[in-house]
């Protein structure tokens, strides 16, 4: 029994040294040994092979593969006026504008039933459906048993992900976060100086790089010349808390957020010692003017790091960009938009906070194949003279959606939990009223 105990100890020490030597140290200095590249190549080849087998398999079984990306119905995109006029054209007597027709009800009922079968919003709050299976159980919605080989590969995949990758990644994440807390606290002991800032940036970068390795994250940065500068505000679309790790791997940002308790609170308190972040108490968050003032002060100081804000206010599933809250765009200063797009084949990065809490979410992340994403830095934007904050927000949102290949929606991400405002219904009622009373509005 003692020998067994010794062997386990030695094995553990060896493994730990390997991890530190091969992964942690290169990560801290930003060097890559190429292990991840090899892993990704193997993974891509396996997934491609699996896709071909599944396609062949479903052809043989003659089951039609449902095209998930196309909708189930074809919807008209015309305006209310155009569609109601078209409906009225079939009438036997000539129509006069500014009159009610019994047939008008068809417009609203059609729109209503179309939205019941398929709508633009509700599916943005659940994970994206895949076109072809990526050998993870969790994304196996409409895919059936194909062949023995695929099933074997799948079992092998489960073993690799849960027994080999998960412990490795948990170790890396623990090392990374502890290093952040310890390092930041140490740096915080120094007096304010250029050296302190430089060290703080170093500590932050190192830790986030280790954490990124802890998720097997492969990030492709594009247009690095547009990277956010000091004194600016960086806005990005929000899919998960991991967005912060992804962005902070390539630059240092000042975070904005609520003070939390527990582990997150410890991290928050530690890193604010090293360099200024903006943490709000829960009670302060309600006071909009106070929030804006503090952010404005931070932005005005050109020595402070750029603020990182996610204007959607909540996580959405990375197929679309939802309404940007105008608060971030009223602060002033230069906005640096960033678009983040995850590749869904390797892992589903979306945090469905209704379904999973933070810990289950992180475990899901660490048992995916990998996190692969593209980050595009867009050229900076500032608010024009005649532009309102809302128009500016929409302009930035459109640019991010265009770059990331995401759908640009005006719906509020808050619809995840809240009901839609009655104001929108009233708008529809108003346009319809104009149609039936003609041009003389009451």
């Amino acid at each position: 029994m003692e020998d067994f105990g010794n062997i386990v100890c030695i094995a553990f020490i060896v493994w730990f040294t390997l991890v530190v030597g091969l992964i942690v140290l290169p990560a801290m200095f930003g060097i890559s040994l190429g292990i991840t590249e090899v892993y990704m190549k193997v993974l891509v080849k396996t997934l491609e092979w699996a896709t071909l087998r599944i396609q062949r398999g479903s052809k043989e079984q003659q089951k039609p593969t449902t095209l998930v990306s196309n909708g189930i119905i074809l919807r008209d995109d015309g305006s209310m006026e155009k569609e109601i006029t078209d409906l009225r054209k079939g009438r036997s007597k000539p129509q006069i504008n500014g009159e009610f027709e019994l047939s008008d009800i068809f417009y609203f009922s059609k729109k209503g039933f179309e939205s019941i079968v398929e709508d633009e919003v509700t599916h943005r709050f659940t994970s994206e459906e895949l076109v072809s299976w990526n050998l993870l159980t969790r994304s196996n919605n409409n895919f059936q048993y194909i062949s023995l080989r695929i099933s074997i590969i799948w079992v092998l995949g489960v073993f690799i992900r849960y027994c080999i990758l998960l412990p490795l990644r948990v170790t890396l994440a623990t090392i990374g976060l502890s290093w952040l807390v310890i390092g930041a606290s140490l740096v915080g002991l120094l007096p304010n100086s250029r050296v302190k800032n430089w060290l703080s940036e170093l500590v932050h970068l190192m830790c986030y790089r280790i954490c990124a390795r802890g998720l097997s994250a492969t990030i492709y940065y594009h247009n690095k010349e547009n990277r956010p500068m000091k004194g600016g505000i960086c806005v990005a679309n929000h899919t998960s808390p991991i967005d912060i790790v992804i962005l902070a791997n390539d630059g240092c940002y000042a975070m904005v957020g609520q003070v939390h308790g527990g582990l997150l609170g410890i991290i928050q308190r530690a890193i604010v010692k090293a360099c200024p972040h903006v943490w709000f108490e829960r009670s302060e968050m309600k006071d909009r003017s106070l929030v804006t003032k503090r952010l404005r002060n931070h932005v005005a100081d050109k020595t402070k790091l750029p603020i990182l804000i996610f204007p959607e206010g909540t996580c959405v599933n990375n197929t679309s960009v939802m309404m940007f809250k105008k608060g971030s765009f009223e602060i002033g200063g230069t906005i640096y938009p960033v678009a983040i797009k995850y590749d869904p084949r390797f892992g589903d990065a979306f945090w469905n906070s209704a379904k999973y809490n933070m810990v289950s979410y992180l475990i899901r992340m660490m048992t995916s194949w990998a996190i692969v994403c593209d980050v595009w830095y867009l050229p900076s934007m500032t608010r024009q003279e005649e532009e309102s904050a809302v128009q500016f927000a929409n302009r930035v949102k459109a640019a991010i959606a265009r770059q990331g290949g995401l759908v640009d929606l005006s719906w509020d991400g808050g619809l995840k939990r809240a009901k839609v405002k009655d104001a929108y219904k009233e708008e529809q009622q108003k346009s319809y009223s104009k149609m039936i009373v003609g041009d003389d509005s009451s």
Partner: protein
Amino acid sequence: MFTGVYNFIYFLISLTVSHSQITRLYSRFTSLDKGENGTLCREDFQRIPELAINPLGDRIINTFFPEGEDQVNFRGFMRTLAHFRPIDDHEKNKDPNVSEPLNSRNNKLLFAFRLYDLDKDDKISRDELLQVLRMMVGVNISDDQLGSIADRTIQEADQDGDSCISFTEFIKVNFYTSP
């Protein structure tokens, strides 16, 4: 359980909806069913933002729920949606002994008629018409003006002089190729 549901539907409704459409609709049904108990309640529908802002949203939601009930299962869900399937060519040469398919033009018009005719007496009265008008225009039109619009509409459509619109009069007014 899945195949059991399929068989039941095919037997009862005799739809020729394709397999993939049923799968997609079932997927949609379960995604709306937040309580995960196999039925939808009114709140589940109201969670769809585009439906919640539709002026006739509540009426449309009510068509799914049979008299006095608060839950609808997948069979009921499909049955109501079947009214809106496009009319297939082969259904035009139908056997007169088989009852009309749910989505024939007549049945679609009857469905729309029922959206107006809340008390199901096969007549749209002035009050019922006013109710629907009020839902569609909100607060933007005065009672008087709305009343005169309703009166004018009934006058045009009414042929038997009972100041109500019957289903036959409704069909005559809405002579479409396909709504």
